[in-house]
């Protein structure tokens, strides 16, 4: 089988870390090659090198057997390499068409919009996507944005495709459709590098798999000759337990009561439309649903970040409707925001600054005027150890941490109880999105620990597997309404899916 890409002895150093340490990697024609590894293992770095975004410190790159020097993405593109980045790289205010033809040398000067529109529609149809090229990006769902990213590279006729965690933003159905498209592209003779943290996906879609760990390649194997357990073992260097680990905590009094809540979304129409909920001490209430159905607005309203339009929120029986976030923090509400690396930290700040983003105002860390850096650094060191944050030091810039470690940092800040003690209520919005299995397990264990200590927990996720694993009750949300609440014993993927789709039928 022809080798499309071969990387030999790639080394890339960043200040304080060796992100890639003598990495060898190869991609064959017609295969889907999964790249697996913990957060910070160096997957994105390696792919950025293959795409010409980073220059390697050492090593050689071969494309179709020829040694190449990649100075910029332009060089990579001209060799038929395309990359879909971990975070979308789309111009939100431009149309789909404008994004797709961006940088394309074909039109000399004037853009022939009609020609491109037709060709994009044809290409999209080939992979079973329906997309209007004249729509603006910000109007699209995450799944559609993903399709635009793919169209961008397919439109250039790329045959080496790099997909960096493409499924972390997709729903189950969207993921399935993506996989069908990927298999089809492989049949057409393209080579696809597919980065993910989900072992199920590796088993389902890939032909071969390469595992990275701490900047090095551990092994490359045919997918059918390996198992999930074996891959997990390679990835984190220890076996991992799949499935049940229930903690039985006694359910206590009602911590949170939400009554007929209505909340406005960003675009000015109600995102939450009459939701009522109840969470008890020691209870995990899972919220299942396709993202973008009001989950974030609900979470933000409870955390005091968004003023409800109508309805009431009671915390331990006290009406806290409309209180601001500062008050809610003091009352013991911890909020873990979605997309932590965007909304949860200040990237330019140091690790210690981000750890104390909330607590800096309170003694002993401040006396209303001066900050006590000694105390803060001491506590930061403790938290770094307790929550396993991998960072050169407490004084490193937060933006250079990998996604998993940023999430750990946020959890440390929110859950450590520096302010207000052990949280009474934890609102966790997609806390494991983009995390590797080790880190995911860590988050799960952490939530269960707080459940045991008596916190009430709202756990928002799109991943049914983890919802079923952790929740005591699962509420299914869709179109800003709760479509049903299932006790854990009666809940299964099918029932939940049915509740979601029923709502769709009603709405449609």
């Amino acid at each position: 089988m022809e080798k499309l890409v071969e990387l030999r002895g790639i080394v890339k150093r960043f200040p304080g870390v060796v992100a890639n340490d003598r990495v060898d990697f190869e991609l064959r024609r017609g295969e889907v090659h999964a790249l697996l590894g913990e957060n910070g293992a160096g997957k994105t770095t390696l792919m950025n090198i293959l795409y010409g975004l980073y220059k390697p410190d050492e090593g050689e790159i071969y494309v179709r057997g020829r040694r190449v020097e990649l100075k910029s993405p332009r060089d990579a593109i001209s060799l038929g390499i395309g990359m879909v980045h971990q975070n979308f790289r789309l111009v939100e205010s431009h149309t789909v068409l404008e994004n797709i033809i961006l940088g394309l040398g074909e039109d000399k000067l004037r853009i022939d919009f009609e020609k491109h529109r037709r060709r994009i529609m044809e290409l999209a149809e080939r992979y079973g996507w329906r997309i209007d090229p004249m729509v603006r990006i910000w109007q699209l769902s995450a799944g559609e944005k993903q399709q635009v990213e793919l169209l961008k590279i397919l439109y250039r006729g790329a045959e080496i495709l790099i997909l960096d965690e493409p499924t972390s933003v997709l729903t189950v159905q969207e993921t399935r459709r993506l996989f069908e498209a990927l298999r089809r592209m492989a049949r057409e003779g393209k080579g696809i590098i597919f980065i993910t943290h989900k072992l199920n996906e590796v088993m389902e879609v890939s032909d071969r798999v390469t595992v990275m760990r701490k900047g090095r390649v551990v092994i490359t194997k045919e997918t059918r000759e390996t198992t999930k357990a074996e891959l997990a073992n390679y990835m984190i260097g220890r076996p991992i337990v799949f499935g049940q680990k229930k903690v039985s905590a006694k359910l206590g009094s009602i911590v949170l009561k939400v009554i007929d809540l209505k909340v406005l979304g960003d675009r000015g129409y109600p995102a939450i439309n009459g939701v009522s909920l109840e969470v008890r001490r020691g209870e995990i209430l899972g919220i299942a649903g396709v993202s973008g159905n009001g989950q974030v607005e609900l979470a933000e309203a409870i955390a005091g970040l968004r003023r409800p339009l109508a309805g009431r929120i009671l915390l331990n029986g006290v009406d806290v409707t409309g209180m601001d976030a500062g008050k809610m923090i003091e009352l013991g509400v911890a909020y873990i925001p979605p997309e932590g690396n965007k909304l949860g930290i200040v990237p330019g700040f140091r690790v210690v600054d981000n750890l104390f983003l909330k607590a800096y105002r309170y003694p002993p860390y401040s006396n209303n005027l001066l900050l006590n850096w000694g105390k803060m650094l001491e506590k930061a060191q403790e938290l770094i150890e307790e929550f396993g944050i991998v960072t050169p030091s407490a004084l490193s810039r937060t933006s250079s941490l990998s996604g998993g470690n940023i999430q750990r940092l946020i959890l440390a800040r929110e859950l450590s109880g520096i302010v207000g003690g052990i949280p009474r209520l934890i609102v966790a919005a997609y806390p494991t999105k983009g995390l590797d299995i080790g880190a995911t397990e860590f988050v799960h264990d952490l939530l269960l620990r707080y459940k045991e200590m008596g916190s009430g927990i709202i756990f928002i996720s799109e991943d049914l597997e983890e919802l079923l694993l952790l929740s005591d009750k699962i509420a299914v949300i869709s179109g800003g309404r709760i479509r049903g609440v299932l006790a854990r014993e009666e809940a299964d993927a099918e029932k939940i899916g049915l509740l979601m789709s029923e709502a769709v039928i009603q709405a449609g």
Partner: protein
Amino acid sequence: MIEWIESVLGLTIQVGTVYLLASLGEIYAERSGVLNLGLEGIMVMGAALSFIFTLAYGHLAAILISVIAGILMSLILAVMAVYMRLNQTVTGLALTMLGLGLSGFLASPEVRKVILLALNPSLPESLLAIQEAPKLPEIHVPLLSGLPIIGCFFRQNVLVYVSYIAAPLMWFILFKTRPGLSLRSVGENPAAADAMGIDVFRVRCLATMISGGFAGLAGAYLFLGFQPFWQEGLTAGKGFIALSLVILSTWNPLRAILGAYLFGGVEVIQYRLQLFGLGALSPYLLAMLPYLAAIAALVAVSIESVRKRIGVPASLGIPYSREE
């Protein structure tokens, strides 16, 4: 009455052209993500150089030199703000200070005399000391210039006609061509543009140079086409008004035409009122109008949905770097 309207309209166009030329270039810079606050300084340099070079070599050379000087000055900004990623506000304001100081120095009587003699030793003594230069001649377009009222659009100097052509042309390039798409993308999301193989730094550098070239031209026009008497700090804040016009036009060259004539009109009416003795209390109020309009525009574009519809350059003022 018709005569009065014609004279006001004619003047409005003449004043408005200063703003139009300057803001056209600035729109390109800002669409690419670079805020060129050096506009005022580049314009005043353009004015000073066009003064000196008109005396020495005539109009054409003077205009060319002003444009080239504008490009070179903005290149300083591009190197500092784009490549070295320094703060654009600080570097831009520094450039304005530099332009104001340097133009005053170069055009001061003693220095000017030395320069003029060096440029053209055969210049008669009488030209060495004067504070003015010949104005650009008006060109009357046959037929069109004879029309009532709108005829005054066609009794203007060459740089006004340049602005008539430049505005729609620059709109077309920005919104309908490949280079224009690259430029807008770089200002919206440089990481996305970079990933598609566009050289973000080069595009930003070029756009900044375009803004410099137009600012130089605006300066030359201000002096040669409108007010050919040299005085220090001749631009008197017109560069900053052009900056606010860019916002008012929501970064669109066609809307900039309307805005430029609007600002021009306000200024002309203000002069007229003063002539009638009515302006005594209002000149400051009227002078405030452009800024008020810009603030209103800023408030409007701060609304998320408006922003997305008209496409405020999302990365305006933010330096780009790949490995961060």
